[in-house]
């Protein structure tokens, strides 16, 4: 509706509208609301829920094809006799990844984001409904393969784990600093391929520490198995620490 004369949207304007600047100023309504506030609220709710369950939660982020699903398949197969896992799989389309995980015997739910480029806290909250009643130790959330957007969306996880395969460039941490800053852990994957590549792994680690000096780095290959034991030991330590905290809280 025209605010000057009250004519309807389809009416013809027979008069001259003064430019906006000549109009008296409108009322100003203060809002001061963070655009990510809604996601952050839901993520805080997820975090409380995970805390109450004593559940350790990781958000796996990387570019497409760096080996997130393969890492999960291998990790779950090797550790599921000692750790109860569940997996939330995020992709724009298909349930291929959830099917690959389910083949290991670990409960997995696929979340399709459609045109969405990241998982958000709301999707994860609802995804968890599928695991109600299951005794769980570690939840792995495999985010949409994307080194940009998932950095901005807290899901309620304990930490983000970034994967970087050695078939990518060693300067990825400098090209996508937001993501490598947000991730506490960096897994350099597919290192069995190093002899065939011109990938300077020390340079890559230096770049990663430039963006995030505190980052913890593991080098591994799911094909040869090299480096997996350090990664598994770290997971076991984190789980033990989580259980201690959960016990202390419940006391």
């Amino acid at each position, binding site marked *: 509706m025209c605010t000057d004369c009250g004519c309807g949207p389809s009416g013809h304007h027979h008069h001259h509208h003064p430019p906006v600047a000549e109009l008296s100023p409108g009322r100003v309504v203060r809002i*001061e609301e963070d655009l990510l506030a809604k996601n952050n609220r839901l993520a805080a709710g997820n975090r409380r829920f995970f805390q109450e369950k004593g559940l350790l939660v990781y958000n796996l982020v990387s570019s497409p094809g760096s080996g997130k699903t393969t890492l999960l398949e291998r990790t779950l197969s090797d550790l599921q006799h000692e750790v109860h896992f569940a997996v939330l799989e995020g992709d724009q389309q298909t349930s291929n990844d959830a099917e690959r995980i389910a083949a290991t015997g670990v409960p997995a739910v696929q979340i399709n984001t459609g045109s969405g480029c990241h998982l958000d806290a709301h999707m994860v909250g609802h995804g968890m409904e599928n695991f109600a009643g299951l005794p769980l130790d570690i939840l792995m959330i495999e985010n949409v393969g994307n080194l940009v*957007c998932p950095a901005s969306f807290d899901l309620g996880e304990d930490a983000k784990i970034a994967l970087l395969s050695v078939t990518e460039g060693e300067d990825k941490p400098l090209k996508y600093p937001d993501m490598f800053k947000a991730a506490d852990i960096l897994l350099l994957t597919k290192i069995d391929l190093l002899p065939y590549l011109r990938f300077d792994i020390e340079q890559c680690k230096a770049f990663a520490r430039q963006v995030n000096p505190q980052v913890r780095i593991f080098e591994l290959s799911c094909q040869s198995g090299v480096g997996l034991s350090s990664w598994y030991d770290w997971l076991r330590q984190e789980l033990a620490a989580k259980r201690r905290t959960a016990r202390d809280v419940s006391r």
Partner: protein
Amino acid sequence: MHELGLTQHLVEIAEGAARKNGATQVRSVKVEIGALAGVVPESVEFCFEACSRGTLLEGSRLEIVFIPGRGRCYDCHAECALDTYTVACPACGGFSLERLQGEELRVVEVEVD
């Protein structure tokens, strides 16, 4: 890439506040975007016209206030500009910088009728 969803949310927040205050139209909306917020202001501008169509914000002016990033070195405590995460402290060369400013992503106010 996620600017479309954020812009939709921006329109929802602004329209909600306008309606709550009995407004019939929004003239302008002011948003703060920090250099470290992971959001491209031009992309928000691009999405805004489409997202505001059919709402109280249709035809309104989007005012984006860009907030430059600032950091403080954990090692030598010097303050510096910090518009990306790849900056080294200009005083000592360290990379451990605390973020003081630049992560803002906020709907500040609307001007309504």
